[in-house]
């Protein structure tokens, strides 16, 4: 998300595309269970960083429309308004808006083990970009400090991707993703020429996932990116551990996040079971200042303490306190937010 703040994009184009996309979905024949859907999240976030508070109302709608049994078109957009204090002794706020498509891709199931993806897609590097970036999924309001490593500047690729389940057994499964992206300067489909992929091994009995990612930037100074992720979710405990490490040409970093749902006290839907304490530790290290990357310019450590509350009706309250340490300055970051996840058919059915 942060990378998109940098370019305040046009509002009209993505909305037009979404409307055309929805209209296309209405026209196509849908099967009984294959009605196009509208999903996504709405959120309102506040963040106080070193005493300056910003407000962020945001919407991330997603459209998914199947065509037959093997083809799916899906797209996610981001619409937000950000209010930031003027600073410099001035009172009041500046505000700016941002509207853009996050991705727009077509998925074709070629065989039981291969799905071909074409269009603008989320770069498959590590786990955060593809899995945790939707605002209604992420436990913290912020992404990790290393979220920008390996996703080739924009987080999206424009080209093709092969992905799927290589092996799926009761005791283990292996899945993969491999992509090639062309360079694009289009405002809505901005991407870098790059290629890469990811392989995951999942052990269902242990609820353990281990994966590795690789990416190579193929424009300008060619750079390699490596990543490893480990997720562990012991069965029926309410505990979850997620972690990633990534390395680029000019730096590296990691994050480890633990969260817990106290399900022992009446289950997930009891008033206690809806609490979700969180902790995330992250560190970044610069190995060279010769080039630019999305990491902080100096070595940084950050500890995030969060407490979320999972309300009924797909609503969550997110709160967190973070202490960030670096040689430039140590800062406190307080964040609160409310998110709502929606999911319904694109139109009324019979």
């Amino acid at each position, binding site marked *: 998300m942060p990378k998109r703040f940098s370019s305040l994009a046009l509002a009209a184009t993505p909305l037009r595309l979404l409307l055309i996309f929805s209209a296309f979905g209405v026209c196509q024949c849908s*099967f*009984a*269970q*294959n*009605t*196009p*859907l509208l999903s996504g999240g709405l959120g*309102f976030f*506040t963040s106080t960083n070193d005493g300056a*508070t910003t*407000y962020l109302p945001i919407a991330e709608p997603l459209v*998914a*429309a*199947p065509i037959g049994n093997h083809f*799916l078109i*899906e797209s996610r957009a981001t619409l937000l308004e950000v*209010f930031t204090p003027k600073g410099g002794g001035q009172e*009041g*706020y500046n505000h700016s808006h941002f509207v853009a498509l996050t991705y727009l891709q077509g*998925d074709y199931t070629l065989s*039981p*083990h291969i*799905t071909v*993806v074409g269009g603008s897609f989320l770069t498959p590097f590590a786990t955060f970009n*593809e*899995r945790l970036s*939707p605002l*209604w*999924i992420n436990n913290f309001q912020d992404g990790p400090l290393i979220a920008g490593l390996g996703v080739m500047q924009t987080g999206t690729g424009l080209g093709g991707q092969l*992905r*799927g*389940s290589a092996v*799926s057994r009761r005791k283990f*499964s292996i*899945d*993969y*993703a491999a992509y090639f992206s062309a360079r694009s300067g289009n405002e809505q489909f901005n991407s870098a020429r790059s290629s890469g992929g990811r392989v*995951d091994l*999942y052990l*269902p009995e242990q*609820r353990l*996932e281990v994966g590795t990612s690789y990416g190579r930037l193929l424009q300008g100074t060619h750079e390699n990116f490596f990543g490893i992720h480990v997720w562990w979710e012991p069965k029926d405990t309410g505990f979850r551990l997620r972690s990633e490490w990534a390395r680029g040409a000019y730096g590296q970093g990691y994050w480890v996040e633990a969260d817990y749902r106290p399900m022992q006290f*009446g*289950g*997930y*839907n009891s*008033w206690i079971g809806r609490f979700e304490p969180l902790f995330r530790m992250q560190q970044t290290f610069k190995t060279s200042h010769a080039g630019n990357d999305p990491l902080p310019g100096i070595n940084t450590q950050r500890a995030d303490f969060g407490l979320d*509350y*999972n*309300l*009924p009706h797909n*609503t969550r*309250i997110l709160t967190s306190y973070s202490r960030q340490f670096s040689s430039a300055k140590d800062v406190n970051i307080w964040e*609160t937010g*409310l998110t709502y*996840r929606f*999911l*319904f*058919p694109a139109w009324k*059915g019979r």
Partner: protein
Amino acid sequence: MNRQHLLLYTSALALLGVCFASAQTPIQSTSPQKNQQTAKQQSTSAQKQNHVQSEGERVFAQNCARCHTPPDGFSPRISGTIALHMRVRASLSEHDMQELMRFFNP
């Protein structure tokens, strides 16, 4: 703190308060066996009250619920679309997608 700042913050706090209050009301779709609820029951309890452990439930718990909490419920008309979307996003096998479909529409 100027007026705009105060107004925004008050609105946000009021909204949080309303949501917190609504959390104290029981969910209509909660099944009688709520102490044994699993991710599957949370997502489909509105459709089926008496589920048995199924392959589809396993697929759901191990793949979908690995990243996010299950939705409170959804229309069966989009169950196929969700399964297709999850097939791509979670790299499900053909078999797992079919089981997921059966789980959504027993």
